[in-house]
């Protein structure tokens, strides 16, 4: 016994680590990449790789430049990269993808203090920045037919908006991702598979995604706007399963997560139905991110046996 470590308890720790959580999220995102590649071709993988690489590099360079500890090992930058790529159309120019990644990591994450300190989801917010900056390329959609850069077409949401229900893809194709849209958002089935994996691994709870999707369904049903097509369209499943469950920018308690989901669902439908954009998931999540500290405050837990003060 050369020397003994002395520290207060607990002396053991659970197995879950930040890196492990991020790794699980990356695993859960794989089915959507497969579906996206089947729909849009190998360029889907290229764009994803570009976003991941530029996110990790941005984080590394920024932290080096600021003389902070380099934290790329926690894999959170990889998750941001994948999520951002999934939110881009497959035909996006490479330089724009790199720019978006840098915005996500440097402006939205690192300038606010790095992992855990950013108030908004980096991928979603970067997508919004790109949507405003590069509106032409960000809304040029490729028809999924295994051949990249073949024909451009409208997304189901645009068709719904135009009242062109006859041109809508079949529901089966909607589930499998054979429809116009961003790289990782088209296959509700693949995204749900990832969500089930995350719930089974206890990385996320079902509350926010289910509340989000149910709210979109119910509200569009009330408005009489094809609720089934509405929930499988746009980025709803991607946003509900992977962004509305981001730890940093969403509430911490079960009740808070339900409120977050319902609120995001409500805003999504309002934008889709009454706004000037066909899709509202990104804006809905960003707005709810901003409300998250207030939701946290409103849903504080009650201590067992705590006296009123």
């Amino acid at each position, binding site marked *: *016994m*050369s*020397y*003994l*470590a*002395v*520290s*207060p*308890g*607990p*002396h*053991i*720790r*659970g197995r*879950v*680590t*930040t890196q*492990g*959580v991020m790794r699980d999220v990356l695993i859960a995102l794989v089915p959507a990449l497969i579906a996206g590649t089947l729909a849009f071709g190998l360029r889907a993988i290229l764009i994803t790789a570009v976003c991941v690489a530029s996110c990790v590099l941005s984080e590394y360079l920024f932290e080096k430049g600021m003389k902070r500890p380099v*934290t790329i090992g*926690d894999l959170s930058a990889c998750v941001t990269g994948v999520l951002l790529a999934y939110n881009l159309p497959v035909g996006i120019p490479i330089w724009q993808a790199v720019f978006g990644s840098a915005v996500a990591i440097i402006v939205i994450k690192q300038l606010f203090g*790095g*992992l*855990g*300190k950013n108030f908004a989801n980096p991928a979603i917010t970067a997508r919004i920045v790109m949507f405003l900056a590069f509106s032409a390329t960000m809304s040029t959609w490729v028809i999924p037919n295994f051949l990249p850069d073949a024909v451009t077409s409208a997304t189901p949401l645009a068709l719904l908006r135009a009242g062109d229900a006859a041109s809508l893809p079949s529901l089966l194709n909607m589930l499998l991702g054979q429809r116009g849209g961003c790289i990782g958002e088209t296959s509700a089935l693949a995204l749900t598979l990832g969500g089930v994996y995350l719930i089974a691994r206890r990385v996320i709870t079902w509350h926010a995604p289910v509340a989000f999707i149910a709210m979109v369904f119910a509200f569009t049903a009330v408005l009489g706007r094809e609720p089934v097509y509405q929930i499988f369209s746009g980025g709803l499943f991607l946003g509900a399963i992977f962004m509305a469950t981001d*730890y*940093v*920018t969403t*509430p*911490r*308690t079960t009740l808070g997560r339900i409120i977050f989901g319902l609120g995001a669902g409500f805003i999504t439908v309002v934008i889709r139905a009454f706004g000037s954009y066909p899709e509202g998931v990104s804006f809905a999540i960003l707005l709810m991110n901003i409300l998250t500290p207030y939701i946290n405050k409103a849903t*504080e*837990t*009650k*201590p*067992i*046996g*705590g*006296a009123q*003060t």
Partner: protein
Amino acid sequence: MRKLGGVSTPHHKNTATSPVEEIPTPPEVRIPMSMHIGAPAKCIVKVGDAVQVGQLIGEAAGFVSSSIYASVSGKVKSVDETDAVTGYRSVSVTIASDGLQTPYEKLSPPDVHDLPSFLEAVRASGAVGLGGAGFPTVAKLTVKDAGKVDYIIVNGAECEPYITSDTRTMVEDKDYVWNSLKLLKKYLKPAHIVYAIEENKPEPIRLTRELAANVQPGEEPLAEVKVLPSLYPQGGEKMLIYNVTGRIVPEGKLPLDVGAMVINCSTLAIISRYIINGMPLVSRCITVDGSAVKNPKNLAAPIGTPVSALFDYCGLKKEVRKIIMGGPMMGTAIPNADMPILKNTNAVLAFAEAEALLPAETPCINCGQCIKHCPMGLMPSNLLTAYNLKKPENLAKYKANLCLECGCCAYSCPAKRPITQYMKLAKAMLRDYTAANANNSK
């Protein structure tokens, strides 16, 4: 009914079926006069005195205090102030053993015939909460109004990983425990006695059910056996009371205020041992385990035995880098292997390098795990923020004082933040703040 938080730790109950082995009498024991909550006992021996096993060497100094007895026969070698496990200094009596273990000749079973004589026997047994708390048992059992005791709950949860000393007591000393329950029923007249055991202890559950079922026709069973889920900290007093009775002990109140009394099973065993055999608490069962221990075992050792003697008996297979008295969640890391085992030491764990070093702390990712797992329904992440911002008023608002320091928050934190450790500091900050406020308002 609200479900309490908690964590599912690995059980590591490697020694659950290892019968208790008595270790050879150590050449020397060091017995601190403070092994309990309350006033330290008053030492009544001096250097050179000859003592025998069970002879009083420390007199209880007040109501919340406990008597201390020589655990070996031999000569008092020194009476001096030494470092205690708690970090404070404490007067300790060191006895050089003569190896004979001669029982004190004046010991005899006490005469127990009514409540005062029963309480006197409990006091004389030197019993304290053997599950770890070390609260003098006689102080717990002395109730002003006996009719207030609705539930007596026997704590056989033993929810900390590794530890099996209560398990072995519930198996090997089951009749002693049961006898104490009869006495409690007779003298304290509780409406219910519930024997609570975590579900990962099949043998104690089976044996206790047998005892409970062994009643004359038409007679009520003495105790109900309640099997609880294995969820740390199930054995916490407030958790047990809630999960058995559905009652919540309000902030600042005692279990008795909701009619409940929780007593550890090993404590009950020692009371009956004294009442039947006349030998007070001089030795106890200790689980020796951990990654550095070659043969994990349950040992019976005299109080005051140095930890190193336990390792000598069980053998070590790796270099020891951390020694924990008690369980890995709430136990105390001790600075050297010369520390003596105390009345409330239920386990000694020796960890090798891999378990001894704690992971580095990374930023909070707001995942809410600490909130989800807190058995008291607190918001550890908010408390941590309040502590870091030095805002004791927020610590008061978020009830840092209710924290049990059970370790669930730090255990479940993916960012590996030492939340429980900060909580101890936060509670001290809150105590200072409350005291200063009380002074100001005077």
